């Protein structure tokens, strides 16, 4: 009888996940066979959408090429940079990890915006880059800028994963290497790199997923470059969706899902295989340890890389409006001016409030549902390896995949453009992560605690509520952080499901549900462009997640193995 209760606890999360992921994936496949006509009806076109993409669409090859470029260049650069940084961290101590992790906690749209503002060829540092001859053309007009932003965002993940891999190398093995005449770079090649290779592969695939599904840098950058030039499949499908071409959008998503599934499978394989790469250790390699100064230099460079765009954003947000579009741009504001913040808050308040609501609600819902499912999965083995694999698969599937069918569902439920549309859909992006984090957290959880509670006569439900939940606080805090981050930075769902700002005149109806990310994007659009306001909103958008980050820092460092 107890087993029923186990299932009962996990059921809400699982039913939700299956219903809202399987249906959209199936429906995309169906939709991709239709075309919206001029009159708005759906017409059966068979494989017409796919044929259009591969045969007629003048940007089909470019977009597929971009997709490949983003999903190869981003991980290649991130991992190449992450390895020396992880080495420096190992040498200099994990306390440096936290500042390096900051980009992972900045909303993606803010990250993209900060870089584009900084590289702006007229009002940003781009002006000096071009003047100095370091750049011949507009630095923000290239696909490599998208890669740059993605590297900035994904580098922390790569560093974290590789650092944990390096730390996992037993000290004795390192000493044995010393005894065998392996030290410095030679040891790095012969021992460190092979032993960290599973983590390096994991980092590669995780950052490849970031590159594969990149959206925000294109959303922000496309106006500066030309239509379609930066697009990948993800962005292009969104464009088709927002132009009302649901069928074509669905077809693009199906193609993307197919490629993404391949990447996910590779990820899961890398995750479970744990086999090492073997590298030859050529005897000509030096054995001298890299000097500490070099490690500090690597660290300093990474810190500069992390904080330069954020610093520029902050300086810009504090400039008086007249100074912002000044050529040549000034670096420091002549005086501190809060006009931009007044503007940002004035227009942005409804958006800000809505983001806070949905982030809070969704974090709470995610934590609770995820804990209920993850505990049963880990401690009672519910669903087995297949369920875990499905959760991993969902983690590596972009939310973009679901928008077209979910849009139709949300519209059918008549909750479009309300808070409820977001409440219904947001867990799709956060629940898999939440379950995964807590699933790992519960691996070290003593199931005898629950058994003792059962022995004391509690039911499973009661035992879970009274014993398991209170003991899971630190794990739930971290799961909550990620849920909060994703909710706070979400762009695709609110873009798809809302269209007006929160109506403050009638606050309890919670209708109008555009979020702060949208507001930032709005301010970046060429028609409404207000650089100062954008910078101020960017800074504001970074504050809540950073507050949350500092609040749960301890727990995070425990999980990261730093500190």
């Amino acid at each position, binding site marked *: 009888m107890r087993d029923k209760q186990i299932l009962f606890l996990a059921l809400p999360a699982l039913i939700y996940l299956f219903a809202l992921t399987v249906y959209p994936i199936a429906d995309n496949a169906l939709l991709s066979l239709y075309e919206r006509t001029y009159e708005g009806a759906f017409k059966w076109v068979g494989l017409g959408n796919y044929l259009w993409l591969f045969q007629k669409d003048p940007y089909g090859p470019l977009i597929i090429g971009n997709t490949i470029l983003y999903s190869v260049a981003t991980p290649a650069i991130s991992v190449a940079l992450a390895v020396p940084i992880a080495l420096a961290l190992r040498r200099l101590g994990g306390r440096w990890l936290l500042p390096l992790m900051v980009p992972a906690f900045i909303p993606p749209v803010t990250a993209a915006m900060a870089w584009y503002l900084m590289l702006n060829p007229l009002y940003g540092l781009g002006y000096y880059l071009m003047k100095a001859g370091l750049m011949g053309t507009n630095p923000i007009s290239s696909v490599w800028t998208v890669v740059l932003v993605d590297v900035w965002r994904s580098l922390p993940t790569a560093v974290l994963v590789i650092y944990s891999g390096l730390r996992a190398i037993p000290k*004795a093995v390192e000493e*044995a290497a*010393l*005894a065998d*005449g392996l*030290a410095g770079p030679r040891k790095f090649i012969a021992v460190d790199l092979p032993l960290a290779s599973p983590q390096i592969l994991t980092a590669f695939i995780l950052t490849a997923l970031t590159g594969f599904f990149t959206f925000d840098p294109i959303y922000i950058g496309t106006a500066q470059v030309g239509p379609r030039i930066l697009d990948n499949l993800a962005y292009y499908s969104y464009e088709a969706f927002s132009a009302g071409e649901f069928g074509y959008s669905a077809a693009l998503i199906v193609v993307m899902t197919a490629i993404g599934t391949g990447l996910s499978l590779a990820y899961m394989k890398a995750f479970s295989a744990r086999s*090492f790469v073997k590298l030859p*250790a050529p005897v000509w390699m030096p054995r001298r340890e890299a000097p500490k100064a070099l490690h500090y230099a690597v660290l300093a460079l990474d810190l500069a890389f992390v904080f330069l765009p954020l610093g520029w954003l902050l300086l810009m947000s504090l400039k008086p409006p007249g100074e912002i579009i000044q050529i040549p741009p000034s670096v420091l504001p002549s005086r501190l001016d809060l006009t931009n913040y007044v503007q940002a808050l004035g227009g942005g308040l409804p958006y800000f409030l809505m983001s806070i609501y949905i982030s809070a609600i969704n974090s709470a819902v995610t934590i609770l549902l995820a804990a209920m499912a993850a505990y049963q999965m880990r401690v009672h083995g519910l669903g087995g390896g297949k369920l875990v694999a499905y959760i991993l698969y969902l983690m590596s599937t972009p939310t973009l995949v679901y928008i077209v069918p979910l849009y139709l569902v949300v519209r059918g439920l008549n909750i479009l453009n309300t808070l409820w549309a977001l409440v219904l859909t947001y867990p799709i992006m956060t629940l898999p992560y939440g379950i995964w984090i807590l699933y790992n957290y519960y691996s070290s959880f003593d199931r005898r605690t629950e058994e003792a509670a059962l022995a004391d006569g509690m039911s499973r439900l009661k035992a879970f509520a009274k014993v398991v939940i209170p003991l899971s606080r630190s794990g739930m805090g971290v799961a909550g952080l990620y849920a909060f981050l994703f909710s706070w930075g979400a762009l695709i769902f609110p873009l798809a499901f809302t269209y007006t700002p929160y109506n403050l005149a009638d606050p309890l109806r919670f209708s109008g549900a555009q979020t702060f990310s949208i507001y930032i994007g709005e301010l970046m659009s060429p028609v409404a462009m207000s650089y100062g306001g954008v910078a101020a909103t960017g800074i504001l958008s970074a504050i809540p997640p950073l507050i949350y980050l500092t609040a749960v820092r301890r727990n995070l460092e425990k999980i990261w193995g730093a500190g």
Partner: protein
Amino acid sequence: MLILKDVVKTFKGFTLRVDYLEIPDGRYVVVLGPSGSGKTTLLRLIAGLERPDGGSVVLDGRDVTNLPVWERDVGIVFQSYALYPHLTVFDNIAMPLKNKRLPKPEIRRRVEEIAVVLNIADQLHKYPHQLSGGQQQRVAIARALVKEPKVLLLDEPLSNLDARLRLEVRGFLKELQRRLHATVLHVTHDQEEAMALGDLLVVINNGRIEQVGPPDELYARPKSLFVFQFLGLSNLVPAKLVGLGEGLVGFRPEDVALGEGDHRAKVLREEYLGPYKLYELDFNGVRIKARAPPTAAFREGDVVQFSIDVKKALRF
């Protein structure tokens, strides 16, 4: 010959100080001490995994104090074996030779030779995770020996083995040392293991060497109370109780003869240990242990007479 002179190493709140220590060639030397005594630090200083704050380490007349590990002619076997999980047994053993730029055939010859010695010649193509714990240890020893070091350092080599295997490996280690005439420095906290193996024991406590010598000498004539109590079972009573004047007197359970004598004590507990019995007695408020033949039949609660072999008693 390995000589440590005036070696000092200070960690937070702990200092290891070795005024003089000499490890003669071709002997099986065991460094014995409780955990935290500094015995592992001593081994690491010799290995070169730690640099001393002062003093020198001299190996066969060469000052190796500031040489990197791989230039010291020492072989190390780690407690956890520390094999390279990504390399085959062959590559694991060959690693030190590869880094000495030996020609390939030479490497192959020496690896295969040492594999035969350690009885793992048929495992060379396997990966460490495919081996049993005992086999892994042999690979680790082979890796340490293949470069023909002047000293072989063993860090708690038996602690990861179960009790039965431990006896077996103990014998194997000693035989190996004898066969190769190697100089072995073996670190352990287990006094029984130390006495069974060591030609020479170095007892270390609290960062200081207490005594160096053959096991029988240390057992019979400990220079300090610590050595006396650390090696084997011991009794310590105020000298007045046994009529030997002031201070404390120590003696071994086997030096107590139960049944007759001047002293009386109450039997608290009896332990049957096969070849003999061990009794715990209340001797005027002090607990002492005594050894008796397995046929002895004292009962708990009995008051028995006993005597002490005063010649063997030690005054502290």
